[in-house]
């Protein structure tokens, strides 16, 4: 729309910082994500006024208040539904949904899956800390079974959702995972998510210092992360490990870890293909594995028409066939009679 604006005064990170004091707990993973988002927005070539951040309820959902963009802090679980209405109403907007594991997968589960299946162009960043933070520490739909929390003193009996698998099952067209503390990878993922035409789902592993501290520390600590995180790169063998000496091999339909060396070579390592949905399903199954590494990066991408463009197309087609709507013509369209 107003591209000239961005041409003359390039936007910077600061343009996206609002004057509101950020009130997450000191050390919360949300700070890192906020900063990452503010870093990539200026690069998108989108006028600032076209960004809309929508959130539900939860710690993460305070996010829009800290962005100097249009923002809507809605009600619990409904952010994707609200964002859907806004995007369909104005497809020019760059719409971002900030949500959490409770907001998106529990109370908002229905809206979440239906947004994905419609492929409305928006970016859903789900801050997954595997706990309810704002209500002070109950287990969430992504908490591991057996988790002891305020509402599960003897351990949670709920099997957790596997977010990427759920998103794939719902027909998602962009599915990725990022980690709050891994800025480099996160920035790349965010940029790809933003550019994807359709619903982009990014599961953000995020540490809750107060109620679930360290839940992802094995993925973020220097001494373990190289062996526990698998960075997915399109068309590249799935290698990991401190010396990049491990890889994933596919045996039947199961992955196994191999050590590169005398027995196995690079050709034995499975090559990632972000357009292969079956592969994405297999990768999502590693989510709760104790043995295999946790994939981070882009699981799956598919280009397919978005809902809102199809809405616009239908309107255009209807106008082509019926002519632009004329109220008087419509009112007179059937069974009228005139009284003199």
């Amino acid at each position, binding site marked *: 729309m107003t591209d000239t604006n961005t041409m003359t005064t390039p936007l910077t990170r600061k343009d996206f910082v609002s004057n509101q004091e950020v009130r997450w707990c000191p050390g919360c993973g949300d700070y890192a994500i906020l900063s990452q988002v503010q870093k990539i927005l200026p690069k998108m070539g989108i006028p600032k006024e*076209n960004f809309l951040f929508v959130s539900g309820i939860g710690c993460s959902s305070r996010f829009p208040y800290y962005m100097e963009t249009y923002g809507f802090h809605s009600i619990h679980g409904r952010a994707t539904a609200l964002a*859907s209405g806004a995007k369909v109403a104005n497809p020019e907007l760059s719409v971002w949904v900030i949500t959490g594991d409770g907001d998106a997968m529990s109370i908002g589960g229905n809206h979440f899956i239906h947004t994905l299946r419609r492929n409305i162009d928006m970016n859903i960043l789900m801050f997954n800390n595997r706990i309810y933070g704002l209500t002070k520490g109950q287990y969430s739909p992504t908490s591991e079974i057996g988790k002891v929390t305020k509402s599960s003193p003897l351990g949670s009996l709920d099997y957790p959702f596997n977010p990427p698998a759920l998103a794939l099952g719902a027909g998602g067209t962009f599915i990725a995972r990022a980690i709050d503390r891994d800025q480099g990878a996160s920035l790349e993922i965010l940029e790809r998510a933003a550019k994807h035409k359709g619903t982009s789902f990014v599961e953000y592993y995020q540490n809750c210092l107060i109620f679930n501290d360290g839940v992802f520390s094995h993925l973020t600590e220097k001494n373990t992360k190289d062996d526990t995180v698998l960075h997915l790169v399109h068309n590249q063998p799935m290698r990991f490990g401190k010396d990049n000496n491990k890889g994933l091999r596919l045996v039947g339909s199961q992955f196994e870890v191999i050590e590169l060396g005398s027995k196995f070579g690079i050709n034995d390592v499975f090559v990632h293909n972000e357009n292969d949905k079956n592969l994405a399903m297999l990768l999502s199954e590693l989510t709760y594995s104790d043995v295999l590494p946790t994939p981070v990066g882009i699981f799956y991408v598919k280009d397919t028409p978005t809902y809102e463009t199809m809405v616009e197309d239908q*309107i255009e087609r209807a106008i082509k066939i019926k002519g632009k709507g004329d109220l*008087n013509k419509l009112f007179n369209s059937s069974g009228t009679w005139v009284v003199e």
Partner: protein
Amino acid sequence: MSETKKQVTELTDVTIRFAGDSGDGMQLTGTQFSDNTAIFGNDLATFPDYPAEIRAPAGSLAGVSSFQIQFSNRDIHTPGDDLDVLVSMNPAALKVHLADLKENGMIIINDANFTKRNLQLAGYDSNPVDDGSLSNFRVIHVDMTKLVTIATEEIGLSPKLVARSSNMFALGIVYWMYGRKFDNTIKFIKDKFSSKPDISEANVRALNAGFNYGETIEVIKTSFHISKAVFEPGTYRNMMGNMAVAYGFLAAAQSSGLNLFYGGYPITPASDILHYLSGYKHFNVKTFQAEDEIAGVVSAIGAAYAGDLAVTATSGPGMALKTEAIGLAIITELPLVIVNVQRGGPSTGLPTKTEQSDLLQAMWGRHGEAPCAILAASSPADCFEATYEACRIALKYMMPVILLTDGYIANGSEPWKLPDLDKLPKLTTRRVTDPEGYQSFDHSSEILARPWAIPGTPGMEHRIGGLEKSDGLGHVSHNPLNHHHMVKLRQKKVDIIAKEIPDEIPFGDTSGDLLVLGWGGTKGALRSAVARARGEGKSVSHVHLRYLNPLPNNLGELLLKYKKVLIPELNLGQLAIIIRAKYLVDTISFSKLQGKPFTITEVYQRIIKEIEG
């Protein structure tokens, strides 16, 4: 052939009910007759009544579907109380509806369906057609299916398909009885079955056969003529409430210059609004069939934030689900129209039957102090103006507006005078584009409406949401005094609307023995009953409310001018509670909860009782 020309009897009004199995096509038959009647120039009102089951067991009492129409040369307001003619396509229909037929009324029966099994299903021990039990009525019974079979023999359709055209035979008889031409129905049949010429031809032949039958047989000695009603000059068409709502939205979108966004989830009896609007894409209408009721309203809230005229429609259970989100629209002060086509409750209740029991839900059904404007439509055609007015208020005052209709007026129909679009009040919005001095929660305008800056407007980036905000700047605020102030401000925003609500002018006198006070879809019955009693010299007047929140300014004063106030409602006295609470005026509540509208007679009798007793 017809050298014995039959006589024509002049009448003023007639009430007919077409009744049969859910699969007998009674709604279609009734709609065709209604459209024909409208084109003929009578005043009319209709009342479709159908079971909740799409196909209840054939022949059962539960499966009876009916369509009632009253038409007249006078100004009428209801589909009629007692029936002059009952078309009974099967024994169950006769059983269910006979009690409503006037003495000496006419029954038209399809003998083909009066089989032993169907009689049994309807609970008849013997066939009422020939056991003498219908001797107080004029019975025309004919094996319609057999005559249709003969008339369509050459087409070679299966017996099942032939039988389906029997409703057209019945319609043909009725067309003959009222001296109608029926080009509209022939055109309808040809359009509907354009890809199935066999079926089209069979239906047309069945229709003609019925008409000729009426002309030929001796049993029907006379046809009837009801002269045209006197209408104000203008162009008219027959209009159903749900369609009038859809048209009202279109007109409001055009007048305001906004695109219409409809977010909703299918629910009886509101779904037709979604159906109609989804056909108006060439009006730039965006319909979003959401995954549930909550997403229906929430998507509309998103669209409202983005700058569309955003609306949703639902019925009771859906309204309950939308409740939290309506609170969000109230605290974010966004324009939104929510139509509740009320039906019998609680829970799933009576999905296809009418009721007025969601008024208090609209008033006080949300958590927190969450007032919004509430309007009610009073008749099928009135749904147009009421919807337009709801949009006007929502956009002007920046708030959600609940419009209450009901199953009776949503599916009923009456003549609608096409509006002069240029004469409708111009809709204005609070849209702003100048960042200079902009504050998202600026309430300095006289009507306290905040400005509407929409995403995409440079320099006006702001955040809104469900958390309490400070007046003016619109920042999150937990300040105790600010909350107190904002709660009162949101109430005042609603109260202030009363300034432009016209004073109520009673039908009848400005004082007297009795005031009948009503709201919503009961208007026709109430007005007719009051008129009847006044015709007999009774001191009774009628006020019918469109604006329920806020109420008209002069209402409290007006109520004191009558010795008694009678409030008939299809609920347990919900308006009565509001009136008593607000004005400390004693009221008499007259309740009916049968899934059916009031009849004129029952209201009239109650009026007499209150005045004389």
